[in-house]
């Protein structure tokens, strides 16, 4: 199955049509997330949205807060959160000094458009830059889900969270895109790309994404296939072989590993702290995922390395 699809369509998606979304929280904490977001967007030549999700005022006093904010506009004090987006734009320019179109863009807090509970910064001269800056207020998963649904994002890039267990379950279950969680991500560190390969359909896309990342970043690639029993079935073995064939066809060296044991525990132990994990999203029924979790959810809960879950 894997082989058929791969040989028929070498690149079965058009990277230029991809849309990535990076969620930032502050200049202080989100620098690595934004940097990786920009890097991954450039790897895929995808358009890049940056969203800041701020706290929403209690509904009781919501109108008083809005009244104050409108009054603050008269004093040229910008809406809280817009300064994070201003920082994000500045940071994106620094990260892509060669991008002349991006360099021309000036942030103007007056040029914002409010609709559907979101504030979108209108960027002049943004032809060719494909940057979107959006401010939302409310609960993180709810707002990210709305943004992804509204704009049709393919990948959401999110920083690690203290409340990891809750975050892992909610974002993987409810965000309708691929998810990249940057846990303890160190931009200076040289990671090894670790692809978790099995016979599921989601593995195909994760291999394609992994190949693009490996090519661009020059990171060594490892594939890991884990079987619960000592015997590796034809499906697992075939998927691993085809993955290797795909990397070979693109001139990327790959190390293959076959281990037995509990899949999640094996992934986590193998990943250690120096891998960048890519795995396919679960194909389990959503109700089963909700009740019992899934391999990606459990892996995300238990590991501390950056992890990309491809849907």
């Amino acid at each position, binding site marked *: 199955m894997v082989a058929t699809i791969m040989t028929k369509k070498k690149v079965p998606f058009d990277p230029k049509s991809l849309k990535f979304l990076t969620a930032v929280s502050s200049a202080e904490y989100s620098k690595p997330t934004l940097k990786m977001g920009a890097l991954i967007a450039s790897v895929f030549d995808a358009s890049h949205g940056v969203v800041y999700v*701020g*706290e929403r*005022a*209690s*509904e*009781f*006093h*919501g*109108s*008083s*807060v*809005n*009244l*104050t*904010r*409108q*009054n*603050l506009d*008269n*004093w040229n*004090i910008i809406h*809280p*959160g817009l300064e994070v987006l201003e920082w994000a734009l500045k940071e994106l320019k620094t990260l892509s000094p060669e991008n002349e179109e991006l360099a021309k863009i000036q942030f103007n807090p007056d040029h914002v458009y409010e609709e559907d509970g979101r504030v979108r910064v209108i960027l002049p001269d943004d032809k060719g830059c494909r940057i979107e800056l959006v401010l939302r207020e409310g609960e993180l998963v*709810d707002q990210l*889900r709305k943004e992804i649904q509204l704009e049709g994002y393919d990948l959401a890039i999110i920083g690690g969270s203290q409340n990891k267990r809750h975050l892992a379950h*909610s974002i993987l*279950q*409810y965000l*309708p895109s691929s998810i990249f969680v940057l846990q303890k991500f160190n931009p200076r560190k040289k990671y090894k790309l670790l692809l978790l390969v099995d016979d599921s359909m989601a593995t195909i896309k994760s291999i394609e994404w992994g190949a693009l990342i490996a090519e661009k970043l020059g990171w060594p690639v490892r594939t890991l296939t884990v079987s619960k029993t000592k015997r590796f079935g034809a499906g697992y073995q075939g998927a691993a072989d085809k993955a290797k064939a795909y990397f070979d066809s693109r001139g990327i060296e790959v190390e293959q590993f076959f281990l037995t044991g509990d899949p999640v525990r094996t992934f986590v132990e193998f990943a250690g702290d120096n891998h960048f994990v890519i795995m396919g999203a679960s194909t389990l*029924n*959503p*109700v089963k995922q*909700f009740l019992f979790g899934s391999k990606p959810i459990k892996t995300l809960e238990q590991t501390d390395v950056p992890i990309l879950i491809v849907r």
Partner: protein
Amino acid sequence: MNSYIDILFWIRQKKWLLITLVYGMFMHHFVMPPPDLNPAAFDALIIISMALILIVTEPLPLPAIAMFMLFMQVVLGIDTANNVASSFMNDAVFFIMGSLMLAVAIVSQGLDKRLALGIITLTGHKTWRIVAGFTAISAILASFIGEHTVAAMMMPVGLTLVRYAHKDPRKVAGLTAALLFSIAYGATIGSIGTPSGGGRNVIMMNYWAEFGAGSVTYLEWIKYVYPMVLFQIPFTVFILLWTFKPEQSNLDSAVRKLVVDVARAGKIKGREWLAIILFILVFLGWVFLSEDFGLGIIALLGVFLYLSFGLVEWQELNRKTNWGVILLFGAAISIGIQMNQTGAAEWIAHVIITNLGKVIDSPAILQGSVSVLLTGVMSNILSSSATVAVVGPIVLDLGGDQILIGFATAIASAFGYFTAVAAPACTIIYSSGLVKSKDFLRAGWKMGVLSLVSLLGLSLLWWPLL
């Protein structure tokens, strides 16, 4: 597959609604009311407890919670549709509606720049004097025009000073917190000063009338409560400077830049004078005519005048007024009245007195401490006005002088210093993103102690003299 996820996501977002509905159905169908509580009163308590859960957890917009409280009274047979409708609208709701619209009308006049200049002229450039000026002016203004109006007008002044003091307000976190909290806490301590300081005061006046406790005029309220406002101002300044320790003792350069900014607005214009005069007329109406006409009707008359003179457009009022809050207070007062009429409030009061009476001998201390602590704690979780709407009927049934208990409750509802949700002024400064939740705790406990001591002093030393 996606529809399953949509359903699961809906369940995630609405889990508190589902929990509340299950709780309500369980209580209504499977729990017998206590023998000394009639079924209608028990149902009123179920509705109010369900509404409280929904208000705190916010799975629904406020207007939906308001509608829930209204239709459930009829569905559970507590009262008829017409009676529920007539208990829904009263002068307290008129006042909340009028004061929210007046806030929009006043804030849109741009008087904040005049206010900034006035404060700076009074205080000079020293930080402690500016903090004192912000606290005092916020307190005095809030006692007449409401804390949300004052906070909305003062926030730009405070933030502009902070930004002129340092490019990055986080680098002067102490100064930022001292200035912003002087606005929030100033407005909060001031909001108890007169009936028009906050909707909760008018809600209590409405309950006094509903419970047959008598009436209190605008000036009588001031006589009873204003000394506490004045007493708390200097101590609040001390607490803020002690807690947040501003990094700069002199704001010379920031003040000069602010004055240049404000001076651009030119001399005060006829339109601004008219806005001030109209508010003074409203204020005089509250002082001298509210006994006959009601505070709410006068507030609405004020809105009518602002609209008639073209000082504000209806579209603006319509867009910026929180109609959901108005509906919610109407519904909360309606269920509060049912708590009184069905005997639910009296039953809770009886349970409290019977149980706590074993620990505290003096009825006066028991009544006072229960009303203050219950109100103070709930204000920090819920919101000050909603707390009075819910707790008011219970504390008025605790026994003792209903007017004094009512004053203590209305005052204690302003003790929402510990969280950002209690008072609108606190929510407003929190929305700037420059103060943190823990800042409310750092200064809040000191303010809580100050206010408790002040209220104790007021009730023991001042009220007996009146």
